[in-house]
């Protein structure tokens, strides 16, 4: 929801003035952990779980595990994600069927959590798998819950055992027990017992649930809980654990926009696995739970995590070190330039990667304009040069350029542009390597240098960019050039439309830390 700031944005904010490289200082970590704490609270994760969780994250972030492929913010995000997935999916498992049928499944939960609907979904799902489930109507409390279950059963094509009319009449314990007997007689292999909704504080009702459990000795007791629940998840989950001791959890109404922090709270507090997720009004909207999806949903990180993984995979540490050396010793050649570019391409489609960034939606138009083939063309030009030419671009005279253009299937103008940009870049590289801040008129300082990674002419012009080197390319160039120079260090305001998170929300283009993040992500 727009109401809540996006965590990626906030993390970027936290790291605005961060000048450390690689290693995190305690203060940096504290700032990040504070933001994560808040994000978790806004996602309705229970406070005590948040405290324990952030403690763990803090410890790990300050520990020795430093991943060079990621910037500090990303490192923390990755740690957080790993911890989340561990809690959520530590004990992933399927339904356990009884050795001797029928398998008895009991549903329990608060009022309005969605038990009756879930009973239908579960029955349909099992029936599709070749089982012969039967529903038992043991919610005799709520008016017409029995009727509802009958309708749901009919929709799912599953029989319903409903001897009592409900509406406060009848004994649910007896109904449950008889239902199981009935299923044994009729050879149903799964019995799903729907029970009345009850509050954790209602001692009588909790006792009733415990009695039902004792009477039918279920193989699985599923605790059905609404994904929208807030801090109360703690007391409710504990009450149900103490009362009926559920064996698994089902999360309902996940099709809404609640972050579902309750999932984390319950998994963490009770140690019971979340087994299913219910995601819609139709009886087919039911699926096994995916811990990884839930983890990124809770923190609203989009697919940024996928991006982190890709960046890690594509990053070649040695390569980068060599590059940094070349920058400082002024032996940077067109060959190196090509190598960098190929490394970038290894990460897969740039468009796709940009699309995965949270908040990238608004940049779609820009993404559409971005032509990845530009990289291919640049590659072709460089590959059309001789070894000597690549090492010493000064050799390139008019006739050589014409030859190259022919060989690459482009024009002399394009070759000229490339060479020009390369020279500019090499110059800047030196400045940066010596610790200075490069400055190109009309563009503002460029992080780490700029040498035509993506070619210029088709890219959208930004304000005052006369260099034929629009800002967005700068981001990409930055990525190529990144080497050991985080942008934050050179203190540059970026002009790129690509930001780490929600760049779209900042009309002035992404801020420097976003640039830094992007640069890190692509290049390092």
């Amino acid at each position, binding site marked *: 929801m727009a*109401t809540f700031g996006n965590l990626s944005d906030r993390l970027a904010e936290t790291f605005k003035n961060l000048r450390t490289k690689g290693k995190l200082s305690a203060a940096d970590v504290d700032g990040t952990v504070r933001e994560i704490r808040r994000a978790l*609270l806004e996602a309705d994760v229970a406070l005590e779980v948040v405290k324990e969780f952030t403690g763990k994250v803090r410890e790990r972030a300050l520990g020795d595990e430093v991943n060079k492929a990621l910037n500090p913010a990303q490192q923390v995000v990755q740690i957080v994600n790993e911890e989340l997935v561990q809690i959520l999916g530590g004990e992933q498992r399927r339904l356990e069927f009884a050795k001797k049928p029928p398998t008895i499944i009991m549903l329990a939960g608060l009022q309005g959590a969605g038990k009756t609907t879930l009973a239908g979904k579960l029955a349909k799902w099992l029936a599709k798998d070749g089982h012969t489930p039967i529903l038992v109507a043991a919610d005799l409390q709520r008016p017409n819950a029995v009727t509802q279950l009958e*309708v749901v059963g009919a929709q799912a094509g599953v029989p319903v055992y409903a001897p009592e009319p409900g509406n406060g009449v009848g004994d649910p314990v007896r109904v449950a027990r008889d239902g199981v007997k009935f299923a044994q007689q009729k050879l149903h292999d799964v019995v799903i017992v729907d029970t009345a909704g009850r509050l954790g*504080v209602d001692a009588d009702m909790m006792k009733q649930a415990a009695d039902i459990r004792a009477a039918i000795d279920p193989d699985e007791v599923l605790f059905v809980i609404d994904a*929208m629940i807030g801090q109360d998840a703690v007391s*409710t989950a504990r*009450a149900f654990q103490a009362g009926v001791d559920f064996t698994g959890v089902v999360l309902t109404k996940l099709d809404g926009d609640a*972050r579902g922090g309750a999932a984390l709270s319950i998994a963490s507090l009770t140690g019971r696995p979340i087994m299913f997720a219910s995601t819609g*009004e139709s009886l087919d909207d039911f699926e096994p739970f995916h811990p990884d999806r839930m983890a990124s949903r809770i923190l609203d990180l989009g697919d940024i995590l996928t991006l982190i993984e890709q960046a890690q995979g594509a990053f070649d540490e040695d390569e980068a070190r060599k590059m940094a050396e070349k920058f400082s010793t002024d032996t940077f050649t067109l060959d190196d330039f090509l190598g960098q570019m190929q490394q970038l391409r290894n990460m897969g489609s740039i468009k796709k990667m940009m699309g995965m960034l949270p908040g990238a939606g608004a940049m779609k138009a820009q993404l559409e304009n971005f032509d990845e083939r530009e990289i291919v063309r640049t590659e072709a030009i460089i590959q059309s040069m001789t070894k000597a030419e690549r090492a010493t671009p000064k050799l390139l005279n008019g006739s050589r350029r014409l030859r190259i253009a022919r060989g690459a299937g482009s024009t002399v103008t394009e070759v000229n542009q490339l060479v020009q940009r390369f020279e500019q870049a090499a110059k800047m590289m030196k400045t940066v390597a010596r610790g200075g801040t490069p400055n190109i008129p009309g563009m503002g300082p460029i992080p780490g240098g700029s040498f035509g990674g993506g070619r210029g002419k088709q890219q959208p012009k930004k304000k005052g960019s006369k260099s034929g080197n629009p800002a967005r390319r700068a981001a990409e160039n930055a990525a190529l050039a990144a080497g050991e120079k985080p942008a934050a260090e050179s203190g540059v305001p970026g002009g790129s439309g690509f930001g780490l998170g929600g760049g779209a929300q900042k009309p002035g283009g992404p801020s420097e830390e976003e640039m830094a993040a992007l640069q890190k992500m692509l290049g390092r």
Partner: protein
Amino acid sequence: MVERTSWSLSGALRGMFAKPTIDEQTWEDLEDALIQADFGPDVTDGILTELRAKVAKYNTTDPTDLQRMLREGIEERLARLDSTLTLSARPAIVLVVGVNGVGKTTTIGKFAKFLRGYDRSVLIGAADTFRAAAVEQLATWAERAGADIVRPQAQGQDPASVAFQTVEKAIKNGIDIVIIDTAGRLQTKSGLMDELTKIRRVIEKQTPIAEVLLVLDATTGQNGLAQAEAFIEHAGVTGLVLTKLDGSAKGGFVLAVQEKTGIPIKLVGQGEGINDLTGFTPHVFAKKLVG
């Protein structure tokens, strides 16, 4: 079990207010307590900043002062809006909306009973034609409350037409108050939200709507705000109903909802019995929260 589940804000606060002076720990405990009552990080920060300023202003170190200031602060925030129901039109149309499973149907049953207690004639429209057996559930409540009900003529009938027929009948028979139930819908389902707009439009062809009540579940967390915003946009909500307050949930998020949206809480549901619905009184609510 009972001991563990009966966490309460007042319980949590009691310990800290019993201390002789206000120290850092007091503030931390206070923050924890507010967050655990679902106030959300933003409102919690707001309350804390306000309290810190007050404590500094009055130069007090006594936790009981802090408690009083907290109670008054919450009460004041809640009392800013008028929580009276406007049901003076005849017929007065009340549309009840909300996400799935918050207790709309139950609330309607109790509300009908409440109104019957004041000897008003009540007609209920069962416009939840979607959920299995919702009409029957509502009919049972209507019977208990002694109210008439208009049922859809066919399964899956357009809810707007049921609403229309209900209002039509009410006008013809001179009914005082009409309550219309709608199917639960998650605020993210734009198609269903548009359906609400349609129901509203269709009713307003005959007579203005007196109240649109959004039912919120007290166990809801910070998503409550998103719910409120979406329903306000599509259904023109005029009042909030907070249900399931008899559980361990405190429903602190309503404070954020009320503040951000300017819609007052009008009714409070605290049980499954037909008489467990009361008007909203900021004083009582704040007292219950803070002690």
